[in-house]
């Protein structure tokens, strides 16, 4: 059976193809269209998934959209009516936005793919999150917790998943919190207040939080009241996200926390203003963590199960995940590589396969590499055309040379095999560097990633030696598989791992099993033999404001425009020539223009 899952129209569009119960292909639209957080209907992603499988749309048994559009429209309309007459500006915008394409999803899919309407199905948004988290995790029975900004109405759901070895899988969401009471919206409101882009800058708030102290926790708690049943409710007079499109916080919010930060002003952590913003971030982070830990503790008591699967955008908060693992009583916490809306494409397809069509359950491969593969020969061609130094070599030679490059302090663009599905670079589209000095962190932030100096970098380490360098609690290595948890660097290694040790002594670790990415694992071992520490700095292969690279040509253009010294794609290695990307070359180009 061939089932296509689609997520689209809000942020992070994606398509995923499931064939005979197994994930076959999945890719975010932004990786192909090259528009960051592309929310458009994912035609390119669908086309690639079908091409990769060698089938046409007519071969699909079903296409599953990741949420119910009319239910979402119901929420938007109801909220506009509830806020009458304050919503008069927001109402026309919301209607135009919804009525243009978003509520006609069945027709849109049917016309794009030429499929009969009966083949088009809809899951609920949080069902898709739950399926993406549970049906891809190596567990038979688990509690499920999904949390995000909002789906149709639900903002946080809990339930149970079961996959008996010889029976049908089931996912039962038992209760939920409904819009506007949303942990995701609380965090996004602070994201906007702190001058970062909503749906994109939340991880900056998490990074900034480490620089502050949670001195404003009591103020944040005034925004979010705990209800007697263990849930929470937002005090809506502090928010405007449910009534306007202009801003998400109200004047009362500003009275409580002070003036918001201008997105154009840099954060200077030496100034009282900068410290206030860091304290705000630390305080909302603490409240988010406390709330999630309480809910997870109750869920553990209620289910008695050892495993928890988490999905939704809130599950990208690695600091909260680590606290849930440490304090909730769950022994294992599974967060998929794409817990956000993109992952819902995979979740929707798997949900339809297992639950709707009642196909037999199968364990999905436990890796994130479902996208297009990189072609090293394409890089060779590009590099030679541009007169760059380029070699093709055996795997062993390439790994040794790359390890030597890293030892010499060079920054390496690393492209290997199939593209990751999800927001993290987990070793197939990564920028790698030596993790030992703070200068390397500053260089990467300044010359390569062009981003704020407070942003931390993550390490990758072979799973078998991870415990030597990092304080991993039971279940920590699993949570770190897809870089979903933040753990302390052991104090004795912090000075030698300065580039990846955050100000609070922690790091967002990736533990790598050899079977998941054998070449990167070999590189770590080779680097470890030379340096004594088999740990590398691993950051996503992209520049600020751009999606992670996909093909060799995109890696190459990123390499040319940034301070990356060496580029590896497949078995091809390109070293940046000394004159490359300088004014001199521009003059040379100008001369050839004149000729």
């Amino acid at each position, binding site marked *: 059976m061939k089932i296509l899952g689609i997520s689209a129209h809000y942020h992070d569009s994606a398509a995923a193809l499931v064939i005979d119960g197994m994930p076959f292909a999945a890719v975010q639209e932004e990786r192909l269209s090259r528009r960051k957080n592309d929310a458009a209907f994912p035609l390119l992603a669908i086309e690639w998934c079908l091409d990769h499988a060698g089938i046409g749309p007519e071969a699909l048994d079903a296409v599953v959209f990741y949420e119910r559009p009319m239910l979402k429209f119901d929420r938007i309309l109801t909220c506009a009516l509830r806020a009458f007459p304050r919503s008069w500006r927001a109402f026309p915008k919301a209607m135009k936005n919804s009525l243009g394409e978003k509520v006609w999803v069945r027709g849109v899919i049917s016309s794009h793919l030429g499929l009969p309407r009966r083949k088009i199905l809809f899951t609920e948004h949080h069902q898709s999150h739950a399926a993406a988290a549970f049906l891809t995790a190596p567990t038979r029975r688990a509690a499920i917790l999904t949390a995000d900004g909002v789906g149709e109405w639900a903002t946080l759901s809990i339930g149970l998943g079961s996959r008996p070895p010889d029976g049908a899988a089931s996912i039962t969401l*038992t*209760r939920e919190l409904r819009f506007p009471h949303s942990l995701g919206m609380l965090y996004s409101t602070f994201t906007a207040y702190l001058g970062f882009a909503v749906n994109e800058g939340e991880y900056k708030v998490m990074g900034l939080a480490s620089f502050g102290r949670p001195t404003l926790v009591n103020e944040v708690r005034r925004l979010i009241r705990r209800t007697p049943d263990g849930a929470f409710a937002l005090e809506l007079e502090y928010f405007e996200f449910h009534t306007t499109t202009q801003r998400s916080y109200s004047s009362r919010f500003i009275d409580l926390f002070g003036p918001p930060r201008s997105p*154009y002003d840099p954060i200077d952590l030496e100034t009282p203003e900068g410290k206030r913003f860091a304290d705000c971030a630390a305080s909302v982070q603490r409240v988010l963590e406390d709330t999630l830990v309480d809910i997870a503790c109750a869920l553990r008591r209620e289910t008695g199960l050892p495993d928890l699967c988490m999905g939704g955008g809130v599950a990208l908060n690695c600091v909260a995940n680590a606290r849930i693992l440490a304090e909730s009583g769950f022994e294992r916490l599974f967060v998929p590589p794409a817990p956000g809306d993109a992952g819902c494409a995979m979740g929707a397809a798997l949900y339809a396969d297992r639950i709707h069509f009642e196909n037999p359950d199968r364990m999905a491969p436990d890796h994130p590499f479902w996208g297009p593969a990189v072609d090293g020969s394409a890089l060779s061609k590009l590099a030679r055309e541009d007169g760059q130094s380029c070699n093709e070599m055996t795997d062993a030679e390439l790994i040794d040379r790359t390890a030597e490059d890293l030892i010499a302090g060079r920054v390496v663009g690393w492209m290997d095999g199939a593209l990751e599905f999800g927001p993290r670079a987990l070793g197939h589209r990564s920028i790698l560097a030596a993790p030992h000095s703070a200068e390397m962190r500053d260089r990467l932030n300044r010359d390569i990633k062009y981003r704020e100096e407070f942003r931390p970098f993550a390490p990758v380490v072979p799973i078998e030696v991870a415990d030597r360098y990092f304080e991993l609690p039971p279940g920590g290595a699993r949570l770190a598989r897809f870089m979903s948890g933040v753990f302390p660097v052991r104090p004795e290694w912090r000075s030698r791992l300065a580039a990846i040790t955050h100000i609070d002594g922690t790091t967002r670790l990736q533990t790598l099993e050899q079977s998941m990415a054998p070449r990167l694992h070999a590189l770590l071992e080779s680097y470890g033999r030379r340096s004594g520490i088999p740990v590398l700095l691993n950051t996503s292969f992209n520049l600020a404001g*751009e999606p992670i690279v996909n093909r060799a*040509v995109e890696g190459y253009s990123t390499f040319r425009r940034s301070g990356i010294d060496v580029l590896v794609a497949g078995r091809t290695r390109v070293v940046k020539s000394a004159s490359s990307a300088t004014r001199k070359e521009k003059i040379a*180009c100008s001369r050839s223009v004149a000729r």
Partner: protein
Amino acid sequence: MEIIRILLRPLHSWIWLDTARRGRKLLRFAEIEADGGRDLVRAAEVTPDPLLRRLFLFHARDEQRHAELFRRRGAALLKALPGSSRSGLRADWLAPGERGLDDLRIEELKDGALLAFLHLSEKSAATDFASYRDVLERDSSTRAVFEEVLRDEAYHMNYTLSQLVRVSPEHHRVLLWRTRLSRLWKGYLRLALALASVISGLILTILYFTVLVPFGYLAKRAALQEPTGWQPVATDRGSSLDRQY
């Protein structure tokens, strides 16, 4: 063109006189330049021509630098103002930035068509930026930003034209005319869409204050009765995947 520039001078003087508007416009220009830079990176990635690839990458880097120049100056202007002075009409239609790449589908264009488009877009931006520079006698820092950008625009105009002649020696004039017509058509579409948006917004606002009033009242009453905290999920709620609701 010179006559139009002279005629528009009082309008531009008025637009650029207000510091808050000036700051916000520069920030808007920064966004447009950054977007244009990303489109040029894409152009470099899709072209099969190695020389064009290098030129587009240089051009993209220039656009990123312009974005940073505009962003810094715009932020500095706004920072110097008291909070209450920060709002106001931005007048984007009357004094545009380097628009033109906004609705471009890079992957669908051949090198010649893209170069023609880039050339005309740079030319139009250079004319606009020169007008803005001329009315900014009293703000030497902003004027200096435009002067620096204009130096690059001249280079961009030259290289795009000479490359157009190189890649399409027989048809470069046709391509330029076709692009001019396409820009006119896109301008008309932008105008028509804006007009349609205003009309539909008006109709929806009228509906909001007439038809929706009783529903608003009912929705408010219903909201008051809605319990907070956990809501049970009915067991059969998500059982059918055929429904959109």
